[in-house]
């Protein structure tokens, strides 16, 4: 076997890319027809079409964008921080975004665009804080990084709880749901913003994929071999904060997507970030659509927050990864 046959990333890209797109298509169609009210997509009546186009599809498509955003951001952060356990939710990035969103709701309740902007700011600030805390003179190890994430997450959670106590009782319940990750508040404008951010963010991350292939082995190494380390770090942090911030402002903190999805993708295609980043986005989209369909249907007509489902899958995986490392 020569290098040419076995490394053929292009063939892999087409094969897996096509499979993941088909999976996403199937997931969206299934999600569209399943729910408290089962809808036949081939014989739509008026009520069915209202449910489908006004309620279900916006939610499904938003879920796909949120999943893509969180998974791509997770994959990018893992490579950058050289740590397969890095995840937006565990690093406090999601909570930073959640706090930003809350501030926007409390201060600029009526202004739609304040939420994504402040969520992005919150995500960026908490990323920066965790990164600075985890760094030491001798570099950064897993334990330091996770601990810093826990501390920042805890701190932000208490601030969030303080702020929630300012809300009235009816908003409190919907807010608690939202904090756990909830797609039921999907709106068309939220979907458009999230779609734009998912696409742009994943593209920015993908331009850094080759540099990340070196960075995930070592920063000094990457520098030796021609990577502008600072520039790559800034691009990946900014893109991840944008992806997470905007996803969280639309759907709350859906946890563990950024951990589960890139991990499964790496099992299938290896560690080359040129494949891992875009494929994580594609698979993340299907994953959240499927998880949210489960959240909607499991105890229908009542609903679970989708974050509860992803956490149920993600926690055991995290423990397994931690033990294996």
């Amino acid at each position, binding site marked *: *076997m*020569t*290098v*040419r046959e*076995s*490394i053929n*990333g*292009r063939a892999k890209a087409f094969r897996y890319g096509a499979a993941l797109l088909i999976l996403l298509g199937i997931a969206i169609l299934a999600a569209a027809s399943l729910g408290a009210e089962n809808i036949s997509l081939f014989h739509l009546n008026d009520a069915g079409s209202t449910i489908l186009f006004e309620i279900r599809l916006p939610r499904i498509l938003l879920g796909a964008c949120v999943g893509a955003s969180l998974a791509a951001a997770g994959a990018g952060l*893992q*490579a950058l921080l*050289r*740590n*397969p356990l890095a995840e937006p939710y565990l690093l406090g990035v999601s909570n930073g975004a959640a706090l930003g969103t809350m501030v926007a709701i409390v201060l600029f309740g009526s202004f739609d665009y304040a939420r994504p902007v402040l969520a992005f700011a919150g995500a960026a600030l908490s990323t920066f804080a965790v990164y600075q805390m985890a760094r030491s003179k001798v570099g950064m190890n*897993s334990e330091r990084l996770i601990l810093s994430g826990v501390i920042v997450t805890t701190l932000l959670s208490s601030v969030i709880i303080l702020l929630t106590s300012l809300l009235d009782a009816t908003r409190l319940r919907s807010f608690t749901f939202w904090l756990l990750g909830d797609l039921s508040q999907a709106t068309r404008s939220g979907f458009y913003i999230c779609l734009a951010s998912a696409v742009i963010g994943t593209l920015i991350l*993908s*331009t*850094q*994929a*080759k*540099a990340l*292939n*070196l960075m*995930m*082995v*070592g920063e*000094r*190494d*990457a*520098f*030796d*071999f*021609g*990577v*502008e380390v600072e520039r790559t770090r800034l691009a990946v942090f900014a893109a991840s904060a944008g992806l997470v911030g905007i996803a969280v402002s639309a759907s709350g903190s859906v946890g563990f997507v950024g951990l589960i999805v890139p991990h499964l993708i*790496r099992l299938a295609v*290896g*560690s*080359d970030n*040129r494949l891992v980043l875009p494929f994580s986005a594609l698979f993340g989209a299907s994953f959240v659509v499927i998880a949210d369909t489960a959240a909607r249907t499991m105890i229908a007509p009542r609903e679970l927050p989708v974050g509860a489902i992803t956490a149920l899958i993600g926690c055991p995986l995290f423990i397994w990864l931690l033990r294996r*490392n």
Partner: protein
Amino acid sequence: MLKVQNISAGYGSRDILRDISFEVPEGRITALLGANGAGKTTLLRTLNRTLETRSGEVFLADMPLSEMSRRDIARGIAVVAQENETSFPVTVQEFVLSGRFAHGSTFGWETVADLSAAETGLVVCELADMRDRLMNELSGGERQRVLLARALATEARVLLLDEPTANLDLSHQAMMFRLVNERSKGCGGSAVVITHDLNLASEFADEILLLKKGEIAAQGPPGKVLTADLIRSVFGVDVLLDSNPGTGNVRVTNLW
């Protein structure tokens, strides 16, 4: 090829190197010797500007490194550093190919030139049948050969090696130096090698640079630098010198 002019360097408030000048001409291997903490690795890191110098300048083919981009430097100078570990499943082949980063675009797939350079690196380092193994499953010596293969794959003309033979068995030590030698002599390149093995330096280096507390204690061909007095002054040990009956080069024996 590589010219070092009056450089000083250090970390934070600590000065490590003071006013160092030397040249690595084309086709030559220079060995950097010195006691622990003498500044060998620091010096090596300034040679590709991984560490900024406080003063002075390093030139690659008459071009000051401070005016070159990271990619330009990486195309001209490749590094075999002390090994790194990764928690990701990276294969030997992917690792070697990542050395081609400075060639071509910063994204997209490798070109045929990239693939064949990597293939050559894998073959000469005797790694061809290990290409699909994962980096974190290799032994220390195997990993060191992968690091050399990646450096060779860059096709850079200058190689900087930090204790490249530390984990290698005798036959692979010879392989390492044979390959470095071929790159230096055959392709008009040159190499700077840090080693603790005075006999390896004597056999394979054209020049030896003896560092003591951040300054150059001696510089010249092995026969001139490896003297009992200099070794005592730099390493604080007494040695016996004779010549290797096989090659005629200086042989150093520690008197313990």
